[in-house]
């Protein structure tokens, strides 16, 4: 469809031309950009700083959407049990959730890619052993692993990220290994390996770049998964403290009010979570579709 332009920018332009074929994915991309911008500029957009205990007033607790609180502004999405403006809390919560998602995604990517590359580079028994363990880990539900780890490591941001990384690096390892080992069998790598060239050069110059496109796809999906996993852990009572609200802790905090008519405390953070996660997945899906070399045109 598009002309074969081989410059970097040209490839990007091609990619974009293919990407925008799907209007749903474009809409999702817009949502993501909006969400990220809102999270970054939360202090400017939000009417209240939900971390600042002094800014909160218990007398504003559990106001329904649309009421005016003691701050003199309208709480469009209502307030929670501590008198926190939910719109502000959601913006800051998005921030926490995105940071957790991206940190977990990044660490898992580095760890997973390293393990995968090592397996592909060595081959033989080491490869077989590593990949068997990775396969098995993949078959264990991530939520279960994360749950056990958080229960054992304790609650807190570093522990949470560690648990998420441990639960997810295997996806990256398998993806990297798949792409890299296909490349590894090609003649030029065999040739490069037989020269005194340092092994890490071969690894980083040739094997890694080939694994990148699928890794990007996996990374997108894993960021979304991390956010969803964090929310699930929070729901099970093993997430972050409420004074550092992530979307998950906001939802689980509001869960107790769900059936007694104060739906907004849980529903709105839930909608924000759903929008974010689904948008990231839709974009990831389209990226996978565009990058897929076998895709029919």
């Amino acid at each position, binding site marked *: 469809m598009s002309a074969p332009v081989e410059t970097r920018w040209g490839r990007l332009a091609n990619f974009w031309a293919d990407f925008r074929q799907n209007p749903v994915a474009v809409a999702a991309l817009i949502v993501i950009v909006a969400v990220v911008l809102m999270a970054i500029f939360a202090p400017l957009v939000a009417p209240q700083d939900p971390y600042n205990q002094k800014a909160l007033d218990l007398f504003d607790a559990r106001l329904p959407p649309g009421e005016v609180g003691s701050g003199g502004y309208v709480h469009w999405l209502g307030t929670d049990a501590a008198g926190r403006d939910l719109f502000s809390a959601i913006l800051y919560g998005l921030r926490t959730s995105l940071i957790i998602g991206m940190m977990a995604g990044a660490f898992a990517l580095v760890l997973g890619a390293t393990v995968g590359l090592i397996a592909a580079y060595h081959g033989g028994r080491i490869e077989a052993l590593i990949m068997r363990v990775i396969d098995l880990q993949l078959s264990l*539900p991530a939520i*279960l692993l994360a749950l056990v780890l958080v229960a054992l*490591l304790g609650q807190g941001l570093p522990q949470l990220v560690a648990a998420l990384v441990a639960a997810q690096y295997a996806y990256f390892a398998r993806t990297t290994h798949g792409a890299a080992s296909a490349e590894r069998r090609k003649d030029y790598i065999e040739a490069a390996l037989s020269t005194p060239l340092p092994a890490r050069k071969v690894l980083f110059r040739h094997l890694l770049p080939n694994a990148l496109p699928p890794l990007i796809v996996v990374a997108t999906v894993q960021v979304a998964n991390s956010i969803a996993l964090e929310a699930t852990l929070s729901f099970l009572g093993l997430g972050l403290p409420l004074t550092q609200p992530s979307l998950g802790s906001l939802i689980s905090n509001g869960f107790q009010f769900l059936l007694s008519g104060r739906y907004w405390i849980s529903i709105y953070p839930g909608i924000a979570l759903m929008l974010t996660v689904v948008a990231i997945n839709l974009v990831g899906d389209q990226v996978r579709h565009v990058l897929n070399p076998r895709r029919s045109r």
Partner: protein
Amino acid sequence: MIGFLIQRVLQAVMVMIAMSVIVFLGVYAIGNPIDVMIDPASSQALREALIQRYGLDRSLIEQYFVFMNNMLHGDLGESFIYRLPVISLIWSRFPATLELALTAMMIATCLGIPLGLWAGYKPDSWSAKAIMAFSVLGFSVPTFWIGLLLIMTFAVELGWLPSGGRGPVSNILGLNLSIGSLEGWSYIILPAFNLALFKLGLLIRLTRAGTTEVMSSDYVRFARAQGLSEGKVVGLHVLKNISIPIVTVFGLELGSTLAFAVVTETVFNWPGMGKLIIDSITVLDRPVMVAYLILVVFLFVIINLVVDLVYGQLDPRIRVKAAS
């Protein structure tokens, strides 16, 4: 073939041993269950007596070998909290999880394959796009959140179905199942649907991918050229060609559904194995945690092994590759 078989079985055994070490060390190396379980007002003497009885005073390696030795004799230990054999605790929860997982898989299949077929058959239609968007929803929205919405809608607002728990059980084929009665079904339908959503999304995508591939292949074109009706083309050729990979994945996914039920069981208060493991984690009942994880690993090793062997049977190239 025999060589291949032995090789694979040996590999599976090695993996089991490796995983048992990882699981055991992972769970035992960190955290002290005594602090969580014991009444803090207890005397030091009682504390020590307990530590000794649970074998926590021995070295980790020693504890591991005791554990492995018992395991080889079919004994996975005793729950700290209930002082009951772990195996019987887990087994008593198994039927609940099994029926939930099977019902969920059934829902996923009955909806997923037709939807996927349609989406693959008419990929450019509006309905196909909607189906695909739905499939993304299915595997990206957190299970607990959908579960909450389901309870809100069907149990609280509409009052059609119970909000949680399991219906009355009856003995079917030696297992205590609740799906023998209509009342039982009213309890299982919401959690099963909740659990099914993730698989449903996956199955739609798999079926669709398979269908598009087959539809553009030569023999479908050939069949059409022969004047076969569309219904027969889809029914005979497409379904037949996509069934093998789907069945394989189905087999693999059943295992993970059994394990994934953790969240659904918590949301719906379903008394299955997942609920048991969550409860055990909150009280650090180590023997139950370890046994559950090892059983899950065992399940997957077995499934992987069977899949490998079946593939090996079907496709000799895999055997050659594996042997090289």
